[in-house]
């Protein structure tokens, strides 16, 4: 039976048709992938199904009945639950509070906390979704946050679950766990719509795929009748190469050398504990690790954004620990920050102004204390062209750019400053294959120019593909170095989980 049928859905936003006559058919009990580039309209389509947007045209049938989904409440009633791409969790609330919000069990008009926690516990046990019902969202890992999101839908008795890019933020172990959870859910009779950019995941667990491109419906195929390459080309509309062409690295002198580094996190707990690391010119060193093992603090310490408690950080044999961010930048460090909206861009500044965010006070952009916006604009124009940043013009606020193009703008800015050390944190998070390809090329290009590149990514595949050496980080220290040419995802994954290779793994 078709649980979900969306026919001819069209949704327009000012100036853009996000969904243009899209069809989607999902059968009962299947895991159905929705595939498309960034901005293809996947989230929009799902938001329509979840009642957050009203479609301009088209019809929706749920379990055979024609429905008009006027809001999330209605969707809940129809048994539709959604795990959003950007988590919809209230930070200062507890896990339980987030789950019961909107449908709270009460006793005498007051929230019945005990009953709520009990219920959360029982659902989480039933589906194998480990959470701490009393923990505050802001204190738990991304993986657990995602489980909370899933629990929210299950708590409401949803049997059609929408997962919008759930794996983008997870470690390999967590992805495995999630996949297991999804299988459990299907076993319990749920139907899942699954959005991801990772074709491997689709091949692994999905039954069928619907592909959309630039807001238009492309095709619906059964997974066992297709392969990754075909999916990729359907999605992008051309052939894509997955392999990264790169020559053997020719590492030279040491550019970055870190010894016995100790750094505290925002909660004043030690996040980096005696870490040693070195990066040489002409190589890419990847840091692999599960989120929350001190990566962020490490990078912030190097770039001067966080105080170093003890230990040394040397750049070209000069001590740079506890220098101001500007001094670090000046000494030759480029930094593609993890969170592009928070750190990377002033979203309300124009693309042009963002291009000189660190260099605005230097000639030719300024003279004494005057800005020279003519030169700024010229420079921005040049970078936009060179790095293929798709923007209406350089005066557009960067807020209006898509994530991929925002990222390209940051990379353009950082690379063009020609730093000796380029730090790239999660450089392709949430981007589509086309954009990823572009960014990977740029990183390798830097390496080949004899720069030192330090790559931090939660995506193991990316680390394995790009790095010349991989440092695995676990609880604030480097627990092992691996050679990407002679390792497997499994081996690295074990290290990331804090286990030495060869150790017994208890299940």
């Amino acid at each position, binding site marked *: 039976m078709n649980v979900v049928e969306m026919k001819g859905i069209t949704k327009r936003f000012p100036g853009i048709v996000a969904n243009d006559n899209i069809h989607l058919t999902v059968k009962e009990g299947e895991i159905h992938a929705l595939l498309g580039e960034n901005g293809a309209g996947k989230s929009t389509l799902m*938001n329509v199904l*979840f009642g*957050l*947007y009203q479609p301009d045209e088209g019809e929706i049938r749920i379990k055979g009945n024609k429905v008009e989904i006027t*809001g*999330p*409440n209605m969707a*809940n009633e129809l048994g539709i639950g*959604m795990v*959003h791409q950007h*988590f*919809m*969790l*209230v*930070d*200062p*609330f507890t896990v339980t*509070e*987030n789950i019961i*919000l*909107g*449908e*709270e069990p*009460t006793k005498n*008009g*007051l*929230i019945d906390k005990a009953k709520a926690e009990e219920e959360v516990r029982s659902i989480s046990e039933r589906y194998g979704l480990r959470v701490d019902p009393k923990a505050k969202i802001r204190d738990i890992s991304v993986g657990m946050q995602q489980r909370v999101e899933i629990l*929210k839908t299950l708590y409401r008795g949803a049997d059609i679950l929408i997962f919008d890019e759930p794996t983008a933020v997870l470690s390999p172990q967590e992805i495995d766990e999630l996949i297991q959870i999804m299988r459990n859910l299907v076993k319990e009779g749920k139907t899942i719509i699954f959005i991801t950019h990772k074709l491997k995941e689709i091949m692994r667990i999905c039954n069928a795929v619907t592909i959309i491109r630039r807001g238009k419906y492309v095709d619906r195929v059964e997974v066992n009748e297709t392969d990754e390459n075909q999916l990729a080309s359907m999605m992008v509309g051309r052939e894509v190469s997955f392999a990264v062409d790169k020559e053997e690295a020719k590492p030279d002198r040491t550019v970055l050398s870190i010894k016995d580094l100790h750094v505290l996190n925002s909660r004043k707990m030690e996040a980096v504990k005696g870490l040693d690391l070195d990066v040489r010119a002409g190589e890419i060193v990847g840091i692999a690790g599960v989120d929350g093992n001190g990566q962020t603090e490490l990078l912030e310490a190097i770039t001067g954004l966080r105080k170093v408690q003890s230990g040394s950080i040397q750049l070209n044999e000069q001590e740079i620990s506890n220098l101001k961010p500007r001094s670090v930048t000046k000494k030759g460090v480029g930094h593609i920050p993890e969170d592009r909206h928070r750190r990377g861009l002033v979203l309300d500044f124009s693309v042009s102004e963002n291009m000189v965010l660190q260099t605005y006070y230097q000639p030719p952009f300024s003279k004494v204390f005057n800005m020279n916006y003519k030169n700024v604009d010229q420079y921005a124009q040049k970078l936009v062209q060179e790095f293929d940043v798709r923007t209406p013009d350089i005066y557009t606020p960067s807020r209006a750019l898509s994530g991929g193009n925002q990222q390209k703008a940051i990379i353009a800015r950082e690379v063009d400053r020609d730093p000796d050390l380029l730090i790239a944190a999660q450089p392709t998070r949430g981007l589509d294959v086309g954009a990823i390809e572009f960014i990977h090329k740029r990183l390798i290009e830097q390496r080949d120019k004899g720069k030192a590149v330090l790559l931090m990514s939660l995506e193991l595949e990316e680390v394995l593909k790009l790095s010349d050496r991989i440092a695995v980080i676990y609880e604030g220290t480097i627990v092992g170095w691996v050679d990407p040419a002679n390792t497997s995802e499994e081996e690295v994954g074990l290290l990331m989980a804090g286990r030495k290779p060869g150790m017994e793994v208890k299940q």
Partner: protein
Amino acid sequence: MIDTLTNILQTMVLYATPLILAAMGGLYSERSGVVNIGLEGLMTIGAFTAAVTTLATNNPWIGLLAAMLAGIILALPHAVASVTFKADQVVSGVAINFLALGISVYLVKAMYNGKAQTPTVLETLDRLPIPGLSQIPVIGPAFFNAFPTTYLAVFVVFLSYFLLYRTPFGMRLRAVGEHPRAAETMGVNVFLMRYIAVLISGALAAIGGAGLSIAIGSEFNETTVAGQGFIALAALIFGKWNPFGALGAATFFGLAVALALTGQIFGLTNYVPSEVLNMLPYILTILALAGVVGRAEAPAAIGKPYETGGR
């Protein structure tokens, strides 16, 4: 000495009462994500309406009710502008302040033959001793021979705590102020919650103002409120957007005022100019903030208009 302590506490309570009520009003609005810089105006309209109604009916309780209603009515444009029209909430709040002062003094002049203040209200909400408790030395006269509005204020604090932290309504309201989109996906009506919150804030702030014109004082004029709405806002922030925190902050401020006033009675003015004594509450507040309290975490979505389907 004991008398002095009683004096200080009594003055503290008197000063804190309107601040507590108005700060509670601000609490609802800001917890739901709507900045309310218009507390001053809402207090003003409350003080005005209470005085005028009490004069007409000779019943201060009706005055209090009318003030509440007026507060709700005046809060409505703030809700419409900042929730429906997605106006800048600070701008809208400032407009409320202008509007309230304008309308109330305009109407006073139109109603009372050009006079800038209402006649004296004769039937006021006088101090109400609680039998037994008010006999306790020192704290009795201060806390249990207080104005009805004082008891009301304390009641509102406890009620607000329960409402905000123990009921579904409160949880939804806070969720809307932290992450409206998340709340909406959970079926919470963000607009409705914000409207309710802003209107409640109007009602409470107006009661706070009413206390100034029909309990502590007995008339309304342009200066009846005179900046207390802003102090209440400060108390709300000082108290970290928490009912008991705001209660504490307002009381602290009342205490500082009380110290300055009682100090005068003691003849402190022979050594310190009275202006300097009058500065004391404000200086103490800054010192307390700088030394002890520090950073306050505002509701995450405060000040941001919410748009269904926006991103």
